[in-house]
């Protein structure tokens, strides 16, 4: 079937198209060159409409152990936000930690077609993939979490060579069906269990004697040498600690030019100035990002309201547990190999710290010059639920609206931010970069995030509106792999996306030492640990898409 999308105003930054009126042709789920003389089966008149690729969320906690803990711990989150079943949709619930089906529906209704779970614990990867397997419409993928695992820390302690680490990293990516490597509070999750309550970049792990800097360097090198497109995805040391801007800057310079993605950097951009010893380090961070083209960031914007923070960073979550709202929290070990912390939280605009966090996030968005290197996230659900993205886009695109919101915040926080003086407003083209083309390039999806021939036909069509929040909240059409799934902000058809992975080559010899290690220390056998393609595809809905790695080793 040939579909023609006629006369839309196209924003396709991957091809430098900035608001030109174009026709698009879709056949068999792909965007194609206009086939000469072929009969168009279905035509959509998009004159006056805005056409972009489907949006990509490159960092959102939508599956895996900690999301489930958040779901279990917050029945009130589910009770307060029920979604009833309809002829087409299954029932579900949840605002901050929505159920799987609801996650898929709500993302699609906002024009998102792909989302990545950034903290897939290798030992829990099966659970994460099974949960994501129940998320309809979206393509998904995960970043496997390393850096506090005993096997790697032993390797580093024993001075294993980089080649062996590369093999272990490549094996992990293969075994867990992931597309990138994430490190969370490098070494800190493990150090917490040895009673360390902080671990700065050059502080030694009490037991292994390894520093976070070493871990980051080794893993970033491994990811780079294996040719994994997505750079090492780093949740740095000292999340949320006033003064952590210094650590973050040292992390940027310490990586010595290797590709690095610093995630939810808003939480890592705090200074210690002012009466409350809490200030914005956004300008310095933005300057460092602008000066280091090897570094990319996503923001992890805070927006006000009730949410839940779910992180592998048990050390920092434990430190913040006293701020839990409502008063309940979980910090736990996972399979003796990692940990997690889930702390419900309410961000308040009349609270000095929260208000300044809000401003710091926006400062970073606006001060980082290159939209190809800064990405739109709220670190769902840690800064705010993903459903608030349209609101966030309006904050970026509409200075008047932004300043009006700013004027309602805690007065001391207003004094501590330069936000009011920043004139920049994001254009639609820049939004398309950060949520489509840039995100696809960063993760290594060569056929997503753009509208050129050969791309998957994930297309979102908006009707222009003075209120861009309304516009981005309710796309007129969303196509997923060429099928119309959303019309006027409502799901009209439910499809199933694929799971994006990379499978870099490695020396099989690593499996011998891993087999011994698994038999001796872990709760499952190596063969049971490895997730096969069939497991993801066996329900007839899922599939695995492997993206190429250009080895640099």
């Amino acid at each position, binding site marked *: 079937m040939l579909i023609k999308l006629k006369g839309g105003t196209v924003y396709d930054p991957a091809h430098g198209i900035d608001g030109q009126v174009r026709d698009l042709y879709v056949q068999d789920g792909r965007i194609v060159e206009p086939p000469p003389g072929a009969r168009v089966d279905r035509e959509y008149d998009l004159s006056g409409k805005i056409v972009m690729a489907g949006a990509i969320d490159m960092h959102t906690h939508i599956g895996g152990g900690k999301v489930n803990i958040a779901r279990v*711990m*917050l*029945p*009130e989150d589910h*009770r307060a936000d029920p979604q*009833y079943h309809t002829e087409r949709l299954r029932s579900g619930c949840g605002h901050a930690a929505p159920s799987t089906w609801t996650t898929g529906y709500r993302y699609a209704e906002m024009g998102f077609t792909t989302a990545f779970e950034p903290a897939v614990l290798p030992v829990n990867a099966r659970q994460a993939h099974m949960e994501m397997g129940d998320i309809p419409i979206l393509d998904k993928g995960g970043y496997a979490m390393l850096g506090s695992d005993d096997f790697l820390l032993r390797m580093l302690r024993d001075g294993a060579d980089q080649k062996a680490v590369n093999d272990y990293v490549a094996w992990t990516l293969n075994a867990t069906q992931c597309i990138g490597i994430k490190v969370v509070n490098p070494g800190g999750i493990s150090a917490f269990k040895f009673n360390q309550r902080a671990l700065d970049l050059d502080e030694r792990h009490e037991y292994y004697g390894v520093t976070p800097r070493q871990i980051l360097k080794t893993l970033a090198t491994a990811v780079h040498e294996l040719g994994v497109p997505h750079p090492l995805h780093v949740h740095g040391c000292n999340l949320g600690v006033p003064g952590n801007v210094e650590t973050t800057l040292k992390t940027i310079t310490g990586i010595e030019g290797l590709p690095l993605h610093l995630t939810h950097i808003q939480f890592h951009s705090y200074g210690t100035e002012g009466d409350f010893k809490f200030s914005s380090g956004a300008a310095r961070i933005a300057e460092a990002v602008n000066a280091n083209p090897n570094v990319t960031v996503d923001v992890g914007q805070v927006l006000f309201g009730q949410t839940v923070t779910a992180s592998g960073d048990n050390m920092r979550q434990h430190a913040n547990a006293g701020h839990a709202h409502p*008063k*309940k929290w979980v910090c736990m070990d996972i399979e003796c190999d990692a940990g997690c912390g889930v702390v419900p939280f309410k961000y308040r605009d009349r609270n000095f710290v929260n208000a300044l966090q809000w401003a710091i996030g926006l400062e970073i968005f606006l001060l980082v010059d290159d939209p190809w290197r800064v990405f739109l996230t709220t670190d769902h659900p840690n800064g705010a639920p993903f459903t608030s993205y349209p609101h966030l886009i309006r904050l970026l695109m509409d200075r008047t609206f932004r300043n009006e919101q700013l004027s309602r915040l805690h007065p001391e926080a207003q004094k501590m931010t330069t936000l009011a003086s920043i004139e920049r407003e994001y254009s639609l083209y820049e939004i398309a970069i950060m949520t489509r083309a840039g995100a696809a390039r960063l993760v290594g999806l060569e056929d997503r995030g753009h509208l050129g021939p050969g791309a998957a036909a994930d297309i979102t069509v908006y009707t222009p509106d003075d209120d861009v929040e309304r516009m981005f909240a309710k796309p007129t059409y969303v196509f997923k792999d060429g099928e119309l799934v959303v019309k006027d902000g409502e799901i009209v058809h439910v499809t199933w996306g694929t799971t994006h992975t990379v499978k870099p080559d490695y020396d099989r010899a690593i499996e011998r030492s891993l087999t011994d290690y698994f038999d001796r220390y872990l709760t499952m056998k190596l063969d049971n640990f490895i997730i096969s393609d069939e497991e993801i595809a066996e329900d007839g809905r899922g599939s695995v898409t492997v993206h190429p790695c250009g080895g640099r080793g």
Partner: protein
Amino acid sequence: MSALTLTLKSAPRQRVDLSPLSAAPELTPAEVAALQVWAGKRRYRIDELFEIEGEDTRNLVLRGDCRKFDYVGRDARDLSLTVAGSVGAYAGMGMRSGTLHVQGDADIFAACELRGGLVRIDGSAGDFVGAALPGDKRGMRGGIVLVKGDVGARCGDQLRRGIVLVEGDAGDWCGSRLIAGTVAVMGRVGKHPGYGLRRGTLLLWQRPESIPPTYGDCGVHTLGFLPLWFAGLRRLDSRFADPANAFDRVHRYGGDLAAVGRGEILIRAG
């Protein structure tokens, strides 16, 4: 105007969530009839389930066997609701103001997270009267619950403010994790009264089988506030309003020292 009377046509096979009915004061009788409620996986109009008579939507009467109807009066404001018989679970949950009068029994979680108004149950109530919902950190936050019969276990669990009055017996763990406020029981109470009680008062007419070991015996006192407190209940249609049942001499136990320990169990003395 006569009360809007809803008479059940036939008992439904599935449990019914009747919370939409709480919007009645803002609606016309025709709109009430058109309200949609969930029963299992199906939706019904109110008038598919009930015969409707009368016009005053601020005064509702439910007739028939309503034991499968849950969430009656949930979050209601300024609604006077009478159930001429027994009712399902979560009756009066989160009610803000007005009255809910159940002439029969109520199932579990009656008056849970109540915020104001009066919930009166002429029969008995199940577990977790005036408690918090599972996962929530605060139970009832205001208002009065009067149960003429018995209540089940965990009565007043995590109660934050307000009064629970029980004319009959209470089950185990009465007043567990009580944050503040008062639970008063005329009959017997089961095991572990006041378990994890933080502040607030458990007022008992009869000595429990045993006082938990985490309570300190403070001796017998005459407390001036008790006559005032009883005077505040005079308008209720209850044995609590009868001066013959009031007293000011109590044996006081302070606790629960395993929790915050600023609460008390008061037992009628002499």
